[in-house]
């Protein structure tokens, strides 16, 4: 059994983004989704600082210091892209104009509660950025994260331990072990990595797993 690496989690999530979708990618694993967009699909990536149609990193020598994404990384603009003011970028987010937000998380709880903005680490100032706006405003929120913390604690929980970003907003979760949908009283297992069994996954998950149909097998390319 080989857990997915970060690129493979992103690859798996990318397969579910439909042609023509308007999508915001959070910092971390979600940012990698842009690299694995299926070639035949046109997907419009949105950035909180006022861009639609975010393209890949610039070629060496083509960098423009005035063109960054919300993660403060240099990017490019695709043909058909547009610049607008920050207010309009968040009007798009909060007004339900984005089809999809793919976000990182510390924890997701049953019912879809999301905790992804602070761990209350006393060694640094808290920062919320656009996390709450995206969680509340996007038409659908999906999370990409490791199934467990580095210390082996489940990140899929009955109740979030960390402060909430928004209650009841997450619909689907992609982890290094599985693809799951959120239910009111647990998580619905849709796919697992090869060699993993439900009992083992349940042991890694702090909430009931529902298995209404035999789970699919996640098959990603080596990345």
């Amino acid at each position, binding site marked *: 059994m080989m857990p997915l690496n970060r690129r493979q989690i992103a690859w798996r999530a990318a397969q579910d983004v439909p042609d023509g979708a308007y999508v915001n990618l959070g910092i971390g694993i979600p940012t990698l989704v842009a690299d694995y967009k299926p070639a035949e699909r046109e997907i419009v990536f949105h950035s909180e600082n006022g861009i639609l149609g975010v393209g890949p990193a610039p070629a060496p020598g083509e960098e423009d210091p005035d063109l960054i994404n919300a993660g403060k990384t240099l990017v490019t603009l695709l043909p058909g892209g547009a610049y607008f003011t920050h207010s309009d970028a968040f*009007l798009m987010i*909060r007004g339900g104009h984005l089809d999809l937000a793919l976000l990182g998380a510390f924890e997701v709880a049953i019912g879809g509660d999301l905790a992804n903005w602070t761990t209350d680490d006393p060694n640094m100032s808290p920062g919320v950025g656009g996390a709450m706006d995206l969680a509340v405003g996007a038409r659908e929120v999906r999370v990409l994260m490791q199934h467990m913390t580095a210390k082996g604690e489940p990140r899929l929980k009955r109740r979030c331990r960390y402060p909430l970003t928004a209650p009841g907003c997450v619909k689907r979760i992609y982890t290094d072990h599985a693809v799951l949908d959120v239910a009111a009283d647990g998580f619905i297992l849709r796919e697992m990595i090869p060699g993993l069994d439900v009992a083992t996954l349940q042991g890694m998950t702090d909430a009931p797993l529902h298995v209404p149909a035999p789970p699919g097998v996640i098959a990603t390319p080596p990345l």
Partner: protein
Amino acid sequence: MIDKQVATLAEAVAGIQDGATILCSGFGAVGSPDRLFQALLEQGATDLIAVSNNAGSGQIGLAALIKAGRVRRVICSYPRTTDPVVFEEEYRAGRIELELVPQGTLSERMRCAAAGLGGFWSPVGVGTRLAEGKEEREIDGKRYVLELPLKGDAAFVRADKADRWGNLTYRKSARNFNPVMAMAATLTVAEVGELVPLGALDPEVIVTPGIFVDRIVVPGGEA
């Protein structure tokens, strides 16, 4: 592949239901998508609520829909404009309802819907007949009335140029209500003067990004 152009005016207005609220752009006759109104007349939807600055001019466009008895109610700031004969006749005969909204409140209520807000406290109308029945409160020593979002089932807008992603530009004062109405409806249909190749519109100059636009039609240039 994203291609929001539809081949005919009939397709542009397909699916609009009886009872729908239609945001009707234009200021006087400028920036008014008259061919879409004509197409909706032929499509047959009735019992409509029209949100518009004025209540139709002459015998075409919104006025033609009103004359045909398809509009149950007009929400507008100033029904009388150049040649408002159709609306005036229906209004005097008691065959159409009028909800009068201060012009800035009309725009702001649509932006409020577009931005996913629940309402806003407006200084306009306080102490007048148009505030009757509205909740009032004092904030920081000044009185405000609560105004609620105004969302369209559809928006009919008119633009100068468009690309297949739905990015729009306007000409001079024909911009008027188009951008805010385009943002504030479930289905936004744009009647445009010219379709240009993707990437031909300067991303600094796009006024309505394609995320707000669902269908584009070029009257006379139907595919």
